C-alpha cells in the first residue's frame, strides 16, 4: 500500500506517538503525558486523528481515581494549611492550647486534628501549663508532599495512575468522595479510554523512519524563523497536495453581461461606434420616424407600454417632425406617395417605453457621419406575457451602416460577417423579409455548430421615407441581431429569465462563457 499521502497528512503529534510506541502498549492520555510530555488536549486530539486514519483503535476502558483541588484546597494553597499555619505560629513561642484556635482563626475541631496530626509526627508537644510548644520549624515530609500536590492539582486534576504510593497515601488523608467542602481534595472515579496502535501504524512507523520524519519538522515558516535563520538545516512538514481545496467566493462579472461585452467588443473591432439612449421614447421616434403608419397593428395599446404620467412629451424636435409627418401624409419630398392619412400630431408626442432598438438607429441618423457604422445593444420593452422566451424587458442588438456605395450586396456581406464573426456560423442563408422601415428587407438564417439552423437577425436598406426625413441622402443598411439565443447556448441555459437570475448561488457557480 502507498502510505505517502497518509504520511503527509500526519500531524507532528501523531508522528511522535507512532514513532515512540508499539502495538502492544496501552495508550492513555496519562501515558502520553508521562512519556511525551503531551498535554491532555494534545493527547485527545492525537487519538482522535489516529483513530480516524485507522492507525489506532480503542482497545478498552479503565477506571481510575482522580483528585481535584476543592475551593478549600485553593484557600490552603494560598493561605497555608492549618498545620502549616500552626507550625509557623509556634516559631514565635509557645501558644496556650485554649487560645490557639482563636489566634489562628480555626474551628476547634480543625485545630484539634491539626494538633493531633503534628503531635503524632513529633513536630510539637504540650507543656505542663497546657501550652503548645514547637519542637522543630521543619514541615514533615507528608506536609511537603501535600503542598506539592496542592500546587499540581491547581493546574490539572491528578490521575491516580500518575501518583507515587506515598502521594496516594497522603491524598487519602486529605480527600473525600463527597461532601468535599471540608477537604482540600475531591476524589472521583473516572473512566479512561485506552488505545492501541494498529498493525498499519506499525507500517506507517517504518515509513516515517525510512523517510526520516521525526515530528520535529517545521510546521509553519514564520517571520521569526526567517529572521533568525533557524529554518536552515531543518525540514518542513510536507503537505498532502492532493487534499481537497476549499471553495473561494470571489468578485466576478456577470456571465450574461460578459457575453454582451464580448459582442460589443466584436462590433467595435468591425468598425462600429456605439450609441445609446433613454428608455422612454416618443411615438415619434418609436414608430413615426421609422415610417410605421400610426394605425400600424404593432402600434396598438396592446403592443407598446404607455406611460401614466406624463403621457406626452412637450415637443418633438424640428425639422424632423415636419419632415416625418409629410412622409406619412403624402410622402413629402421623399418620392413616396406616403400612407395617405392625417398624421396625428398629438399621438406622435405620446410617451412609450422603447419597444425596438431600431429607434436609436433612426435617432442616430440625425447626427451620423457618412461613411459611418453605428451599433447599440439596448434594452427594449414589449407588451408580452413573461415566460421562458419572453422577458419583461430584453436586449436588442441593432445598427446601421451609412455609405455612398452601400447596397444589397454589401448588406449581405455585412450579415455574413456577423454570422461568421459574432455567431460563429458555419453556413449562411438569406431570405426576403419584411420590416415596415426597410426595403428591400432580408432575414439571415445561419447554421450554428451547436444550435443548427436558426434566424440570426433581420436587416434591410432603410426606406427613403426614413432616411430622407431625417436628413440622410445616402443609402443606409439597417440590421438587428438576436443574440440572446447564443447567450443561452453559451451559458448552458434554456430560459431567458435565467439570464437575469436572482439566484446568487447559481450565479457564483456559473462558469465563464
Amino acid at each position, binding site marked *: 500500500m502507498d502510505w505517502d499521502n497518509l504520511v503527509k497528512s500526519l500531524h507532528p503529534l501523531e508522528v511522535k506517538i507512532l514513532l515512540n510506541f508499539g502495538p502492544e502498549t496501552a495508550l492513555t492520555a496519562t501515558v502520553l503525558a508521562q512519556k511525551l510530555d503531551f498535554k491532555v488536549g494534545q493527547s485527545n486530539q492525537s487519538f482522535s486523528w489516529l483513530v480516524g486514519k485507522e492507525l489506532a483503535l480503542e482497545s478498552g476502558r479503565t477506571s481510575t481515581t482522580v483528585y481535584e483541588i476543592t475551593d478549600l484546597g485553593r484557600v490552603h494553597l494560598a493561605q497555608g494549611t492549618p498545620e502549616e499555619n500552626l507550625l509557623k505560629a509556634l516559631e514565635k513561642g509557645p501558644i496556650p492550647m485554649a487560645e490557639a484556635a482563636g489566634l489562628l482563626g480555626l474551628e476547634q475541631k480543625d485545630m484539634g486534628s491539626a494538633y493531633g496530626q503534628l503531635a503524632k509526627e513529633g513536630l510539637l508537644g504540650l507543656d505542663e501549663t497546657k501550652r503548645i510548644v514547637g519542637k522543630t520549624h521543619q514541615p514533615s515530609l507528608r506536609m511537603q508532599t501535600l503542598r506539592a500536590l496542592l500546587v499540581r492539582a491547581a493546574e490539572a486534576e491528578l490521575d491516580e495512575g500518575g501518583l507515587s504510593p506515598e502521594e496516594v497515601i497522603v491524598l487519602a488523608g486529605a480527600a473525600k468522595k463527597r461532601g468535599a467542602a471540608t477537604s482540600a481534595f475531591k476524589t472521583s472515579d473516572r473512566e479512561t479510554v485506552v488505545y492501541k496502535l494498529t498493525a498499519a501504524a506499525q507500517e506507517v512507523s517504518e515509513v516515517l523512519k525510512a523517510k526520516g520524519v521525526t515530528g520535529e519538522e517545521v510546521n509553519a515558516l514564520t517571520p521569526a524563523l526567517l529572521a533568525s535563520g533557524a529554518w536552515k538545516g531543518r525540514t518542513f512538514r510536507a503537505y498532502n497536495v492532493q487534499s481537497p481545496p476549499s471553495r473561494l467566493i470571489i468578485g466576478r462579472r456577470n456571465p450574461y453581461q460578459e457575453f454582451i461585452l464580448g459582442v460589443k467588443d466584436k462590433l467595435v473591432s468591425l468598425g462600429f461606434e456605439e450609441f445609446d439612449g433613454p428608455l*422612454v421614447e416618443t411615438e415619434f421616434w418609436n414608430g413615426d420616424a421609422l415610417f410605421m403608419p400610426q394605425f400600424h397593428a404593432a402600434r396598438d395599446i396592446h403592443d407598446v407600454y404607455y406611460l401614466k404620467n406624463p403621457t406626452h412629451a412637450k415637443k418633438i424636435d424640428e425639422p424632423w417632425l415636419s419632415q416625418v409627418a409629410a412622409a406619412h401624409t403624402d410622402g413629402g419630398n421623399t418620392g413616396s406617395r406616403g400612407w395617405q392619412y392625417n398624421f396625428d400630431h398629438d399621438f406622435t408626442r405620446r410617451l412609450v417605453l422603447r419597444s425596438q432598438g431600431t429607434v436609436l438607429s433612426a435617432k442616430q441618423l440625425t447626427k451620423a457621419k457618412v461613411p459611418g457604422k453605428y451599433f447599440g445593444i439596448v434594452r427594449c420593452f414589449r407588451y408580452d406575457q413573461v415566460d421562458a422566451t419572453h422577458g419583461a424587458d430584453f436586449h436588442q442588438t441593432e445598427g446601421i451602416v451609412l455609405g455612398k456605395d452601400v447596397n444589397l450586396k454589401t448588406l449581405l456581406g455585412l450579415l455574413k460577417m456577423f454570422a461568421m464573426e459574432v455567431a460563429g456560423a458555419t453556413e449562411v442563408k438569406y431570405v426576403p423579409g419584411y420590416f415596415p422601415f426597410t426595403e428591400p428587407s432580408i432575414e439571415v438564417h445561419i447554421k450554428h455548430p451547436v444550435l443548427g439552423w436558426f434566424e440570426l437577425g433581420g436587416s434591410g436598406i432603410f426606406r427613403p421615407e426614413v432616411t430622407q426625413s431625417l436628413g440622410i441622402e445616402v443609402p443606409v443598411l439597417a440590421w438587428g441581431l438576436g443574440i440572446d439565443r447564443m447567450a443561452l447556448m453559451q451559458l448552458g441555459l434554456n430560459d431567458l429569465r435565467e439570464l437575469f437570475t436572482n439566484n446568487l448561488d447559481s450565479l457564483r457557480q456559473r462558469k465563464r462563457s
Partner: protein
Amino acid sequence: MPKIEVKQQAFFHQANMKPTLGELADLLPVLKSEVDGSEGEGAATLLKLEFNDTNRPDLWSTAGAARGLRVYYQGWDPQYPFFSSVGKKQADGGRKVVVEAGLKNIRPYCSAFAVAGKVTDEVLVDLIQTQEKLCHNFGRKRRTFAMGVFRSPMVKFPVHYRAADPDTTKFVPLGMTESLSLREICKKHPKGLEYGYIAEAHPKFPLQQSDDGRILSFPPVINSADLGSVEVGDTELFIEITGTDLPAVTLAASIVACDLADLGFEILPVTVEYPYDTPFGREVTFPYQFQVPVDVELEYVNRLLGVNLIGDQAQKALKKAGVFSRYENGVLTVFPPPYRNDFLHPVDVIEDVMIGHGMENFEPETPSDATVGRLSAEELFGRQVRDLMIGMGFQEMIYNYLGSKKDFIDKMNISGHDVLQILNPMTENYEFVRNSVAPNLLETEAASAHAVYPHHLFEVGKIVRLDPTDNQGSVTRNSLGWLSAGADEGFNQANARVASLFYYLGVSRSDTPGESPKGVAGVRDYSVKESSDPRFIPGRAADLFVGGHKCGVFGEVNPQVLENWNIGVPATLGEVDLDSLLVK
C-alpha cells in the same frame, strides 16, 4: 404576422405542383412565407403557413399563396379581365348599391361584387378564413374595413347602404333567433360585444338592405340570419365590403375577386353609387383597378441592389414576382397587379426585382468603407467602475428594469413620487420602471439566504427618474448600485468602499463636510453629509456630493426595509449616479 391554414391537397392543386414539405420550405421564401407546422396525413393534411409581409394581404389565402408560387416557379400569367378602371367600366348587369348621404362621416365607403359558381365546402372554409384574416390584420380588426358574404339570388338590387336608426332598426342576426335592434345587437351578440364599439361611436349605424327591405347586414358587426347564411351548394354569392379607407375597401374586394376567379368562379361586377365625392368618383364599378403605374429608373434599381441588370433582366425578374412592367429609356414602368397596393415608393419595386432575380444571384460583398469603431464614453466608464467593484470582491448582477409597486416603492420605504408608472401594464408585477438598482439588489439578497456569506452584489445599469423639467418628463441615468450583507456589515465598511471607488475614479475625498467642497481646479472632490433617505438607518447613511450636486447615497439599510424584504442579516446599500461622475 398573419398565419393561415390551407388544405395541402387543394393548395398544391391550385399551385399546380406537388412538392414535399422540405421542398415547399425552400419554395416559400419568395412569398416571405414559411411553413409553421402541419396536421393530419394524406388527403386531409392541413398546412399552417406564416406570412411576414403585412402589406401583402393578397397572399393570405389558399388561392393567393398558390398563385404566388405558380407565377414565380411556373411563369403563370393569370388574367383578370373583369376589372373596371378609370375610363373603363365593365357591365354591371343592373347590380347596384346605392349609398346614403348620411354615411359620409360614419363609414363612407363600400365596394361590392357578385360571383357565380359552385360553392363547395373547401371554397366556403377558405372564404371565411380570407374574410377573417383580411378584416383582422389588414382591416385593423374591422375598423378600416369589414366584409360580408350573402346569397345573391335572394338579394334584390339595388342594395341600399344606409345610415340607420340604431333603436328602431331590427333584424335577426346570424347565430341568433330573435329580432334585435342594432343597439341591442351591440350589447348581446358576441360579435356585437367585439365590434359594436366601432358603430356605437356615431349616432346612426351602418346598414345594408336589399331593395325589398330585407336586411343583409349591420356592418362591421354581423350579417342577418336571413340573407347572410351562406351554405355549401349555393351557386351565386354577393360580396360587399364597407369601411373608412376607399383604397383598402377596393383592394379587399379585388383580392377576394381574384381568389374566386382563380377557383373558376365568374365575377359579376357591381356598381356603387355615392351621393358624395370619393377618390375614385361618385360612381365606381367593382372590382376596380385603382393602382397607378410606378416609374423607377433602372440605374436606381441596380445601384441599390449592387448589380448591373439590363432592362430585359429586370422585367423578367418582375414578372416572376407577378408584376408586369415596361422598359423604356432607362425607366421601368411597373403596373401593380390589381390585388396589390404595396408600391408606395419606387424603392418597393426594387425588392420585387431582387426576389424575382433570386437571392442566390447576389454575391455578398464586404463593406469597404473604413470607419473607426468606438465604445460610448458611458460604456467605457461603466467598465472601469465594474472592474473596481469586482476587485473589491463584488458579484456583478444584471436585472430586469420593470417591477411592481410592492417591490419598487412599498418595500423600499419611499414615497415613490419619482417612479415611472406604466399606463397599460400587463400585470401589476411589471407596472413600474425602477428608479434605483436597490430593490433589485434587495430582492436577490432576500432570495439568497442559503448562499455563503458575506454577500457582495452590484449592478451598473439604467434607472429612470421622473423629472418635470425634462421634455419627456423623465430622465434615464446610468447608475451603480451595490449591496453587502453579512453579520459584520456596517457603515464603516461601506464608507471605506466608497472612498476606494472614488479614489480610483479620480475623485478624492474632501475634508469639508456638506454639499459644496472647495475643489482645486482640475481636481474633483466628493463630500458627504448625513442623509435623510428613508431607506437607511438615521445617522448611519450619507448623501454623496460631487461639484455641489448630489450624486449618490450609501449607508446601513433600515431594519424596516430589511423586514419588508424578509432579510435576516444586516446589509449596507449604496448607489451612485455614474453620469454625473463621467468627465466627457
